[in-house]
Every structure is written in structure tokens, then in C-alpha cells.
């Protein structure tokens, strides 16, 4: 691919659209081969091209956590990552957490503790909590609050969210034993 052809010295912006880029990734267990424009964020890929609208766009700038998904088990902000950069990765979104009708312990805990009001931040909160549990660094309630601070809840459901994550952490730890 020669980008020279595409780039005319008109300011610093290419004048013709660069070709689509091929990317292979696994989303919620299913391998996908896709062609995307290089500037497509992982978030836009999920929502606009794969109809996985559970993952939300809040700020689109890394400031709210609504777009949190898991990449190889680690939580990231999908709005600040390019889809093409995820070549070969395993992505898990809110749609991929339940096993059939069996909800993930974090999902169950959110329902039990009423850990939402409007629900817009919830998919991000839940994916973030799953990441927090995988990471294994939270020992206390304060740790949970600090390590969940990347997820803003405009409804202020933080008390329920903290309680839900605390419960889910215990459930997952005892399941692992």
C-alpha cells in the first residue's frame, strides 16, 4: 500500500480516502474478519458495524468509562482505541458476559443492589467491575472505589455500585476456590 499516492501536499490531510484495512478479532467468542477504515474506533466498530449497542458512548474522550470493554480480559476504554489495533485480540462486551440465561455474578449483584438508575453507565460499570475482579488488586471497599473511579455515574448510583462490586468480588473469589 503506498500512501504517497493518496497524500497530496494539500495541508497535512490526505485528499482521497485511504483503503479499508482488514482486521481479524474475536468478539464474545466469535471470530470476525472485517474491513474497516483505519480511524474507526473499537467503540464505533461494535456499535455501528456489529450492532452491539450495549457498549455505550458517553464522552468519546476517555473521561467517563461508558465504553469500557474487556480486551484479553483487561478493561479498556473502547473509544480511545482503533479497531485495527485489536488484530488477533479477544474482545468481551456486556453482551458476552452471561452464559445463556445464567447472568454473570456482577450482573446479578447489580440487580440485587439496584446499582443503577437510568442505566446508561451500567454496561461500562459492569465490564469495569469484571476487569477489576480479574486484575485482583482490590482488597478493601476503598480499593474498589478507587479502582472503579474510571466509571462516572451521572445518576450518582455509586453506593449501590460499590456494594454490588463488593458482593460480586466475594462471589467470584469463592467460586474460584
Amino acid at each position, binding site marked *: 500500500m503506498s500512501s504517497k499516492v493518496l497524500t497530496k501536499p494539500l495541508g497535512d490531510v490526505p485528499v482521497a480516502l485511504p483503503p479499508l484495512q482488514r482486521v481479524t478479532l474475536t468478539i464474545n467468542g466469535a471470530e470476525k474478519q472485517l474491513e474497516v477504515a*483505519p480511524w474507526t474506533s473499537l467503540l464505533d466498530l461494535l456499535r455501528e458495524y456489529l450492532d452491539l449497542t450495549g457498549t455505550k458512548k458517553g464522552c468519546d474522550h476517555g473521561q467517563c468509562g461508558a465504553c469500557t470493554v474487556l480486551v484479553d480480559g483487561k478493561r479498556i*476504554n473502547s473509544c480511545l482505541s482503533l479497531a485495527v*489495533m485489536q488484530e488477533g485480540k479477544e474482545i468481551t462486551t456486556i453482551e458476552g458476559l452471561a452464559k445463556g440465561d445464567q447472568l454473570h455474578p456482577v450482573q446479578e449483584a447489580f440487580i440485587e443492589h439496584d446499582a443503577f438508575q437510568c442505566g446508561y453507565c451500567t454496561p461500562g460499570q459492569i465490564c469495569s467491575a469484571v476487569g477489576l475482579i480479574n486484575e485482583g488488586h482490590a482488597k478493601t471497599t476503598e480499593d474498589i472505589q478507587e479502582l472503579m473511579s474510571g466509571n462516572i455515574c451521572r445518576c450518582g448510583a455509586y453506593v449501590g455500585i460499590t456494594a454490588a462490586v463488593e458482593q460480586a468480588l466475594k462471589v467470584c473469589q469463592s467460586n474460584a476456590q
Partner: protein
Amino acid sequence: MNSFTYTRAETVDTAIGEIKAHHTAKFIAGGTNILDLMKENVERPDHLVDITRLPLKQIETLPDGGLRLGALVTNADTAYHPEVQKRYPLLSKTILAGASAQLRNMATDGGNLFQRTRCYYFYDTATPCNKREPGSGCSAINGFNRIHAILGTSEHCIATHPSDMAVALAALEATIRVSGPNGERTLAMADFHRLPGDKPQYDNNLEAGEIVTSIDLPANGFANNYNYLKLRDRSSYAFALVSVAAALELEGDTIREARVALGGVAHMPWRKPEAEALLKGQKATKENFRKVAEALLEGAKGFGANTFKIELAPRAIVRALVMATEMKKK
């Protein structure tokens, strides 16, 4: 965001070559700063070179007892690495005081050094800004400048460097390994970033096409007496208004060596070895700490909304040093 082409580099040399082969190419690592700025049209590269697959993801012990952090190690993997936690707890604490868990999983140690200022006018392409558009003027000097610098400013720019990690690296006297079109070189942390002067468009002293390959920590990690004190508008997930990385080597109450670096006050981490030397052989007391604080703040200048930092910073320095002293007395 403008359109651009994209390639994934497999070797450091091809990554460097890709930058040269394009008009305004940039590296992308974690993407957390460059994509943010591209969405705002502040950065408009015609080509992105993905460097996340480069073999620079190791943390390894150096022959001199130091520790090498590969440029592509994530901030999270660095902060939680057992050797970093044990020998460089100041660095670990500092990284964990920045951004959010998600962002730290993405952000790389190399990329962290290059993050650009959070000056609101730099982000807003409708306003003049010498850093974004040289010669257009600085909107912050007479504008809203609560987050701006009080030290080392120029009439052209009063922006701060927003990194927490860089402040700890300055205190620890890390060195930065760089590869570029003209081969390899090493820069001391003190020589990596720069003051704005009359060229605020340059944040650091790297040449075009140079890539950071590693950050090397010297053997002494000041693991017994240290602190990172970060003062900000909310207690997590916010940038520093003022931050202090403090490290002491104590013998009883007597200071053998002291390091103090400040964040949130200048265009680069702010350190003054002459100020630190005032503590050598002295007792670890508030009075002595206050003297260092005053020496560090010499020449500080406020611009209105940020003038509060001139008193906040020395208090933060004294407090950080007191807390470092009280951690562990040998």
C-alpha cells in the same frame, strides 16, 4: 478526525522508517492521548504507525542493579510489577495516582512521557494557542489559567506537563533510551522535556522520527522513605493541580540524600538539585523542608486563577517530605 493511513510496525527500524516516509506521520501506542487529540483536530497525522507490537514489553534488571522498563509496557503492568512495587514504590504509587484503571491498562510508559498539555485553549481549535499554532498567541495568559504553570513560563506559553509518572521519573533520575534515524542515544530525565521559551510547540528535546525504547531506573529506588502527594479537584481520575514526588535517604534523623520533583507547576517536571542539596546532612525537620520548598519556588509567578499554587506548592512539598520521613525510620 481527519482520514489517515495505518501500518503496524514489527521492528524499531521499520517504525522509524515509516515516520520518515510520510509527511506528518506519528506513532500510536496506547492511543489514549493521540486519539483524543485527533478527535479534536489538534493532532492531524496523515499516517499512524502502530508500535504496540514492537518487542519492547519487558521489565528487566540491568547489570548495574537498575531496572529497565520497555517503552511499550503498560502503566498498569509497570505499577503492579513486583520489582517496581518492591524497589521503586514511589513510581508505583505515582502511576496509580494517575488516570483510571482502564486508561492505565492502555497507556504505555513511553507514551506517558509524550502526553500533551491539558491546557483548555490547546484543545480548542477556535482559540489562539502558540503551542498548537505557533505565532497565534497564548489565550491562557490573560484567560482562565487555574491549571497553568507558575515556574519556567514564558510570554509565549504557560502550559504545564500533565504527566504524574514523569514527576516520579525525574525524582528517581531515570534515563530515557531513544532510537532514531541517526542511531541510539540516552537522555537524562532532566534533559528530556523542555521549557516553552519562544518555541512552545516543542514539548521535549527529541528529533523527528525518534522513538523511546526504554526508561532505565538507577539502582537506588529510595524505597524506604518516599511519597507522591497529588492535589487535585477530585480525589481520583483528575489531573494534578500541584503534585510532589519526594524521596529521602535517612540515617536516623539525618538526611543523606533528598529528591523533590514537582508536577502541575511547569512545562516539565520541576527539580532543582541545588535546592535538594540544602538538605544534605541536615535534620529532617519542617523548618528545613520549608527552606527547600522556598528554594524550589524561587521566581514563581502567578497569572490570576493559578496564583494559589504559589502557596499551595510549598505546603505540599513540606507535607510530602514529612510523610516520607515518617514512613520508616532506620
